[in-house]
């Protein structure tokens, strides 16, 4: 039952935040509800990691479309975690005075709806219903992206909606073809992920491959895979920072989860080329993002491109062979989520401190705001995979898996792109944090806000708290992965490979 409660809580919270109470009401409700969701998701993950099933009592009526296995539980837990830290971060970040209480209420209502739509993705087992909630994530987050209501934010939101929905149209076609393929295989069971895997060997290959490609391209648009990524840096840089953390940290991963769900189906079918497609699109994304990272001029866009890179890494890992690299891919999913949300929190406090997004206008940040500077350096090191942090461990194990698979070319390219991205990101961050003003960047002084003439900037308490909470897993997962989490990731990797009975 806890799964149903997880879905209901954000909806109840949406209703509650709309009530016309004082200013602190909406943030408090949101934090409480996301904490409750986090605890319940932890409970669900705990049950699943020990091999237990929590769906057996739900096999009646419409509830047969709800199922949670290792992979879903992992994604669910990550969504709940980022949802909570972003909710805490929002208190301070959105708390500035020029925002009316009504606007603040609107923000939190949208926030809770968006979290609801994401939580529903891993929980639902019926592919067309999953498609619908994927659409809902776009629609619920569109107004969050345009929240600041500037020309740029509106442009970003518009591009985001149009491109994502175009992709969704293709994906819908793909899911309908997939259903036709299942019918053609003679299967009579309900249209769910697990029945799809069972029916896969008898499906007509043409239909299955058409469906896979349509879904890969359609949903890949929303994941930000490279030829379809153009909206992503806009939307992920113009939204308010807590929303960026949700969009970049977890929404892309949640959509990628839907694509990953097709891999066991494709494996069960004879002569599918799913893994080749994944490797090609993945490497293309990593490579393009790595080279763009060298020349970005806006630090929030920089982290957005880093998301494109990491989505590419995860997809490449899956393409290298799910049986070997599946566990590493899951590790990368976890480390990307916790690290990228931290990075956007750090970028958000930098934005609060200096009020500009231009890299060239920010110099010597460590002197203006030591916390923001330190957070940015830590985030940069963490996301580029510096040891001993979480991303290092997962990227290392992906490369190792690539070598055991004897995929030397793909592994070498991946390693080179990761190194280029490291230099790109760290070069910019180094100049922002430690650079001195006036070395050829004279125009930068125009953009400086009045608050930082010699004075240090004080961050809101909740932002510091969220940064601290988000930093813990980034640091800890680098050298110690708790046993239950290891079990959960192993379960998730098993879902990717072998058909579930």
């Amino acid at each position, binding site marked *: 039952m806890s799964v149903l409660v997880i879905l209901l809580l954000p909806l109840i919270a949406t209703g509650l935040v709309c009530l016309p109470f004082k200013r602190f009401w909406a943030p408090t409700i949101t934090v409480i509800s996301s904490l409750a969701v986090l605890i319940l998701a932890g409970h669900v993950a705990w049950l699943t990691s020990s091999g237990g099933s929590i769906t057996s009592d739900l096999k009646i009526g*419409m509830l047969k479309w709800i199922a949670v296995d290792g992979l879903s539980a992992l994604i669910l837990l990550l969504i709940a975690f980022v949802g909570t830290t972003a909710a805490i971060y929002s208190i301070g970040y959105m708390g500035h005075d020029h925002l009316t209480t009504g606007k603040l209420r609107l923000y939190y209502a949208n926030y809770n709806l968006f979290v609801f739509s994401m939580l529903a993705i891993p929980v639902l087992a*019926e592919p*067309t*219903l999953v*498609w*619908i909630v994927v*659409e*809902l994530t776009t*629609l619920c987050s*569109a*107004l969050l992206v*345009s929240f600041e*209501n*500037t*020309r*740029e934010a*509106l*442009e*970003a*939101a*518009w*591009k985001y*909606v*149009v491109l994502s*929905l*175009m992709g969704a*149209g*293709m994906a*819908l*076609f793909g899911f*309908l*073809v997939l*259903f*036709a*393929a299942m*019918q*053609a295989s003679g299967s009579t069971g309900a*249209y769910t992920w697990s029945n799809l895997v069972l029916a896969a060997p008898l499906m*007509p290959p*043409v*239909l299955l491959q*058409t469906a896979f490609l349509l879904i890969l391209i359609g949903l890949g648009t929303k994941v930000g895979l490279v030829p379809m990524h153009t909206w992503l*840096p*806009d939307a992920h840089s*113009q939204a308010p920072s807590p929303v960026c953390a949700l969009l970049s940290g977890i929404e892309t991963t949640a959509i990628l989860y839907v694509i990953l769900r097709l891999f066991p189906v494709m494996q069960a079918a004879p002569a599918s080329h799913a893994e080749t497609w994944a490797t090609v699109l993945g490497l293309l994304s990593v490579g393009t993002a790595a080279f*763009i990272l060298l*020349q*970005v*001029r*806006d630090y929030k*866009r920089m982290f957005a491109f880093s998301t494109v890179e990491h989505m590419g890494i995860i997809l490449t890992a899956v393409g290298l062979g799910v049986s070997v690299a599946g566990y590493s891919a899951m590790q990368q999913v976890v480390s990307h989520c916790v690290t990228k949300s931290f990075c956007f929190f750090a970028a958000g406090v930098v934005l609060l401190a200096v009020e500009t997004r*231009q890299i060239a206008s920010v110099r010597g940040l460590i002197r203006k705001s030591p916390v923001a500077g330190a957070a940015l350096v830590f985030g940069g090191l963490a996301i580029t995979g510096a040891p001993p942090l979480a991303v290092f461990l997962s990227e290392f194990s992906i490369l190792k898996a690539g070598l055991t698979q004897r995929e030397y070319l793909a592994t070498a390219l991946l390693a080179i792109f990761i190194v280029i991205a490291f230099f790109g990101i760290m070069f910019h961050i180094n100049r922002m944090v430690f650079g001195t003003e006036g070395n050829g960047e004279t125009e930068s002084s125009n953009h400086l806000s009045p608050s930082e003439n010699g004075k240090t900037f004080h961050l809101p308490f909740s932002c510091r708290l969220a940064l601290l909470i988000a930093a813990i897993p980034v640091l800890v997962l680098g050298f110690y992965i708790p046993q239950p989490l290891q079990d959960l990731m192993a379960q998730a990797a098993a879902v990717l490979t072998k058909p579930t009975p």
Partner: protein
Amino acid sequence: MNDTTNQLLDNLNALVVGLFLLTAFGIVAMRQARGCLNLFIIQSLLLAASAALLGLRHQTEHLYGVALVNVISKPIIVPWLLRKTSPSEIYTRREVDQVLNIPTALLIALALAILSYFLGQPLLKAVGPDFRGPNVPIGIAGLLLGAFTITVRREAVPLLIGLLVMENGAFLTGIAISRNLPLLVELAIATDGLVIVFIMGVLTRAVQKQIGTTAVGSLATLKEAPDTTEESEVAK
């Protein structure tokens, strides 16, 4: 049901989906936002008619449900939502600066329709004989023409209608090849279209308030190179 009736129903369905394709062409060529909306309403009614005919032909009751939902949601609720959410003057707008002129756009649309016929063939061979019909290639054509409409349009309402045409196209194929989908799912997909209209309507209103135009295609300041950004700011 006997063979003659079945034959008649098949022919009627072929006529209906043929008209569906024509409306998709019309939406590519139509310059006036109001005209686009009207064509879209006709198209949705044709989709509903096709669902009803297929339901009658194959005795699949819940296709009637799909038809009913389409009749209610798209011709009635979509225009109402648009009127509620976005400024009314967008209906009367004529688009003069399309990316392509109309004859070229129609020629490309024709090429896309022919392409979708060939794309549909392997799919048709793979599904059971019961599921074959003109719905598959024309659905693909709807999908492609919708996407094409989005790429050549700059006004908010025609863009939105392009998105809905894509969804209609996917649906037209869906009612033929995957008609046993649970009704709840189909209802949810139809509701989803309404949410799209609502959100895009709200966005359009915000864009118009902020920028003073609904030509969203002219929004192009976010790029990698900031120099051009500043230039275009100056140009405005």
